[in-house]
């Protein structure tokens, strides 16, 4: 029987990659859970509250977006709107060209991966350097991130030392400290030479126009200290109503993503450099990126827009642990990606319609989500959508015959009796492909169809029917 693409990917994943992904995710998940339950009496209530706040925002974007735009402008920030990936890239390029900028340093931003900004800038003669260590390694390897928070979770230090040697960053040495020092040395020069910085934003507060950037390497601070122009790419769903909401969301983000009470660097940026401030960009731009988010908002899967990109659902997901992030063929892997990536495809949904199938629907993702997204329900909705749109689903048993049997008691009873046949058939002759597939790795129990009903009948009048 045919199987699903993600299962095939997992079957061919090499053991060292699987081990790296498994160990990395398991340890993140366990630390996350310990920290949350050590620090809070009822973390689940906090997750629910954070979910309610984000849900409120995405359902009221029509008022929050103009409000935050007004606030940003008042703070001296220039605001740009981009409805598509292409228009977002062009907006960034326009800003750079206006300044004659040819060198950009980037702090890790998922939305820039989504719109493929670096490739676009390189094509247009702008050097764009990733400054987050993981993203930097992805960039020099021409690889793709395989995790939202830990882009190189699939690599080990020996592979990294090798790529450093290949890219002229020093002879092979796989000491993490050496690797870090070499990257730091290389990147410091890039910061100093850069004309502009591109970042994302973890949160943007409507009432103050304050944006928050979190990192653990301080690279976004270097980006902003060294350049005169800051361009922030922000998905339209990143808004929070009030500054005080940050107390809840930042506490949940650090603990959920990296099992930290707070990330090492948390920057609050409310506008370009003031006259009294010696350093920092004197020009600041926010590019709001839609890229089909409003389409998602119009669907019953809109809850996925609450996501704060912490990666906790990836870490706990048994399928992600077996398959790794590249199996999802998307910028966003794991459970959140299995919902978001097909939705962001628009009309090309069928190309990623297999992703929502890559789940045993175990619900662990929902249980850890800091904004309590009902991911399994959304996966189910997308399975229904795929079926309605007649997207083929390799390996999924057809349900029409089963539905017919299961809605007609007489036929059902006959099937219960007839099923006994499988007890006497060798696997390859069983007429149901799903049962043959089952038997590839598992034994089937003895068919005992109808035995319980016989037992009931021979009881002395005890059980009604």
């Amino acid at each position, binding site marked *: 029987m045919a199987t699903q693409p993600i299962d095939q990917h997992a079957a061919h994943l090499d053991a060292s990659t699987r081990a790296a992904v498994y160990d990395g995710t398991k340890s993140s998940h366990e630390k996350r859970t310990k920290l949350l339950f050590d620090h809070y009496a009822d973390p689940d209530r906090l997750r629910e509250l954070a979910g309610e706040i984000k849900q409120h925002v995405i359902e009221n974007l029509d008022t929050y977006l103009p409000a935050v735009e007004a606030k940003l402008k008042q703070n001296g920030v220039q605001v740009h709107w981009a409805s598509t990936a292409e228009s977002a890239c062009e907006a960034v390029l326009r800003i750079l060209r206006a300044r004659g900028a040819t060198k950009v340093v980037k702090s890790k931003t998922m939305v820039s991966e989504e719109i493929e900004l670096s490739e676009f800038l390189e094509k247009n003669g702008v050097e764009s350097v990733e400054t987050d260590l993981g993203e930097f390694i992805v960039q020099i390897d021409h690889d793709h991130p395989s995790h939202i928070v830990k882009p190189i979770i699939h690599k080990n230090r020996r592979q990294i030392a090798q790529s450093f040697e290949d890219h002229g960053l020093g002879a092979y040495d796989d000491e993490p400290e050496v690797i870090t020092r070499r990257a730091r040395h290389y990147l410091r020069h890039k910061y100093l030479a850069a004309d502009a910085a591109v970042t994302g934003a973890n949160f943007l507060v409507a009432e103050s126009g304050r944006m928050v950037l979190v990192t653990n390497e301080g690279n976004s601070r270097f980006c902003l200290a060294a350049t005169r122009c800051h361009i922030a790419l922000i998905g339209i769903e990143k808004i929070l109503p009030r500054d005080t909401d940050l107390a809840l969301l930042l506490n949940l983000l650090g603990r959920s993503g990296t099992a930290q009470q707070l990330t090492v660097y948390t920057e609050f940026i409310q506008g370009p450099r003031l006259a009294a401030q010696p350093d920092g960009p004197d020009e600041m731009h926010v590019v709001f990126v839609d890229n089909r988010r409003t389409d998602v908002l119009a669907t019953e899967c809109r809850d996925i827009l609450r996501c704060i990109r912490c990666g906790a659902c990836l870490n706990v997901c048994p399928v992600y642990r077996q398959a790794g992030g590249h199996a999802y063929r998307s910028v966003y892997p794991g459970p959140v990606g299995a919902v978001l990536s097909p939705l962001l495809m628009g009309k090309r949904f069928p190309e990623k319609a297999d992703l929502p199938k890559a789940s045993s629907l175990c619900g662990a993702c929902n249980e850890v989500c800091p904004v309590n997204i009902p991911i399994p329900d959304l996966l189910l909705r997308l399975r229904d959508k795929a079926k309605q749109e007649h997207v083929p689903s390799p390996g999924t048993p057809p349900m029409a015959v089963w539905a017919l049997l299961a809605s007609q008691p007489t036929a059902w009873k006959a099937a219960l009796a007839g099923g006994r046949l499988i007890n006497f058939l060798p696997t390859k002759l069983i007429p149901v492909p799903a049962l043959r597939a089952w038997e590839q790795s598992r034994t089937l129990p003895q068919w005992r169809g109808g035995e319980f009903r016989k037992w009931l009948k021979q009881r002395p009048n005890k*059980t009604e029917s």
Partner: protein
Amino acid sequence: MLNTERKPITGKRVQLMATCLCDAFYDDVAVATVEVLEHVGCTVAFPMGQTCCGQPAFNGGDWPASRKVVRHTVQTFAGDDPVIVPSGSCAAMLFHGAVLEFEKEADLPAVESLGRRAWELGDFLVNGLGVRTWPGRYPASVALHRSCHTRGTASSPAAALLLQSIEGLRLAEFGEGEQCCGFGGTFSVSFPHISAAMGDLKLEHMRAAKPDVVVSGDMSCLMHLGGLAEKEGSPIRTLHLAQVLRDALLNAGLLARSKSA
């Protein structure tokens, strides 16, 4: 998220939904469920027209096919009595899954009403009837597999409470208990590699705890785990929660052994 608001229990008349797996493979689990319910004083009705809860097609993405089966189930389990299901998964299908796929259907109220009457067995015993300790004896070390559909529901704590109260029974804790066994319905055949890898990991954790028996409130997980272990040549002993509760009564002479069919 889960629709767990239940109709309060007033009488002791219940309807049994045996589940398609017990109807086809695990008749002794259904028998044990009847015996356990009768032991606590319930009168058990078994609507003969019952088939399946509709979950295979719901999870498989074929909601129209699933709704057809759910409609049949709603009709079959008419009335006001609680519907007891020896499966966390099928119970969750009734009080959550079916409600989701009927959200735009005219007969949603009937589906919701069945959902409010649907109880997983352990949840019903503890939270429906108020049973806190289980009589009898069961001298064994038990690994309790908390099936995923009981995640966030009262079923897993209920099963643990009942099992721990049985004389002689010890719960053997094992690593990564929150992880799925890899069954997942149609997932088990459309993602055979990942499904088996997840199952092997679960078996490895369980074996390390050296239990005499692996117990769960869901036969689907046990069918997968037991089938994997047997195929690999090192079978494990699996029992449904209802079977352990029933066997504890038998061991202490509190129940006469029933005539098998």
